């Protein structure tokens, strides 16, 4: 009971008598938004207890917090969820602290939880103090100054370009082949097609009458190299057969492996 009156004394505004006091009380309570969360509020409340944070009664603090929250709700002030979570947790902590420990419960003791909360408050307090000390230090641009007229270190930056001949040639090749681009196809370099041979033979055979060696009809540039020669020979032979079939030419061969002769039919 003594405790009760004591903490109510700590919050005299809640017990306000006059209208002005009442308004002031509401102003304070409404200022719950001014606190940076429940821990901040708890720290403020703990300061009102005017005791060393290390010796603080968490039970007493929990009661203050709960009273604060209850009062805020009476005034129908919207409280953020975390304030209510803290209230619920503190109510739980309070019951742990008040009831004898349950030997079957292996969770942390109420004392340990209270100690951790006290530690958190003390740590937050310490960080606030540290922030204040930091800001109270001499600061550059306020208490001490850097050279106002720094001399620029001139950087003579020379670029060496790493282009080499290969880059140059590749660039050129890229430019020159840009419009030659086509989808990939198997390139048959040394192949003389039957269509090519047909076209050539038609032109060359014509209406002339004398027999001529088929080899003589191989195109220029397709005689020397064996692969090319093979392809051109096969194509020209096939073309000759085709022309013979259509009756445009005649063909003859004296014996196996002997040269093949053709002549145009009139």
């Amino acid at each position, binding site marked *: 009971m003594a405790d009760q009156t004591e903490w109510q004394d700590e919050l005299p505004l809640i017990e306000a008598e006059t209208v002005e006091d009442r308004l002031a009380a509401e102003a304070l309570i409404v200022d719950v938004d001014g606190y*940076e*969360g*429940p*821990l*901040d509020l708890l720290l403020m409340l703990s300061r009102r207890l005017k005791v060393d944070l290390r010796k603080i009664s968490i039970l007493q603090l929990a009661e203050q917090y709960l009273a604060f929250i209850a009062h805020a709700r009476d005034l129908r002030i919207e409280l953020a969820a*975390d304030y209510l979570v803290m209230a619920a947790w503190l109510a739980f902590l309070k019951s742990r602290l008040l009831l004898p420990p349950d030997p079957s419960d292996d969770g*942390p*003791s109420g004392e*340990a*939880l209270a*100690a*951790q909360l*006290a*530690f*958190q408050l*003390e*740590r*937050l307090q*310490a*960080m*606030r*103090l*540290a*922030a*204040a*000390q*930091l*800001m109270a*230090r*001499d*600061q*550059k*641009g*306020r*208490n*001490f*100054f*850097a*050279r*106002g007229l*720094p*001399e*620029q*270190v001139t950087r003579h930056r020379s670029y060496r370009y790493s282009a080499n001949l290969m880059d140059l040639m590749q660039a050129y090749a890229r430019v020159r082949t840009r419009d030659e681009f086509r989808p990939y196809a198997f390139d048959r370099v040394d192949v003389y097609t039957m269509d090519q041979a047909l076209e050539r033979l038609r032109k060359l055979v014509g209406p002339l009458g004398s027999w001529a060696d088929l080899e003589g009809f191989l195109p220029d540039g397709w005689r020397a190299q064996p692969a090319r020669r093979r392809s051109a020979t096969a194509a020209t032979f096939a073309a000759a057969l085709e022309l013979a079939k259509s009756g445009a030419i005649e063909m003859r061969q004296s014996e196996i492996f002997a040269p093949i002769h053709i002549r145009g039919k009139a």
Partner: protein
Amino acid sequence: MTSVLPPDEPSLFAAPSPAEQERMVEAMLFASAEPLSLRDLQDRLPHGSDAAEAVAALRRHYSGRGVELLRVGEAYAFRTASDLGHLMAREMVELRKLSRAAMETLAIIAYHQPVTRAEIEQIRGVAVSRGTIDQLIDLEWIRFGRRRMTPGRPVTYVVTEPFLDHFGLESARDLPGLKELRAAGLLESHAPNDDTAPERRLSADPEQDDLFDNE
């Protein structure tokens, strides 16, 4: 890919005299508004010079003068003596006023570094707004440290050389009250002798456990 050719081609000649090296370091530090590291200095000194020795001599020479040679992390910078600040009213810059949240966040990072955002929130008891961290990064007072080797690999924050420079600190070890806070166990995550503590430190990563070990 940048190769810095020292202005004085490293020569076969002897290094300049200590007095001459001191002059050179003095010129370089005086010319720069930013702290220069020993390495920066060494790179620009003639071959065979000893930047550290020149700096030490210079610090002695300037001690007690209107301009002093301060150590800032691994670097050095000339700064006006702080007792003369009142004469520099014209040079004063408007310091951006930090919100309480930003000040506390900065202090928590400085004293607990490397520290994750979750740890900052745990200490402050409220969420850290994006803007707060952004503002401190923007001021170049904090930067990202190594990722914590815990699930999610959260990023950590550490303070920077410009932070040390701004607050006239030689290193993060010189933060006011650091020793006392540590002795009181207030840089830990749990109360001393607390049986609820699964681990003693905020950090679950033993490599990162040491304060201020990175840079």
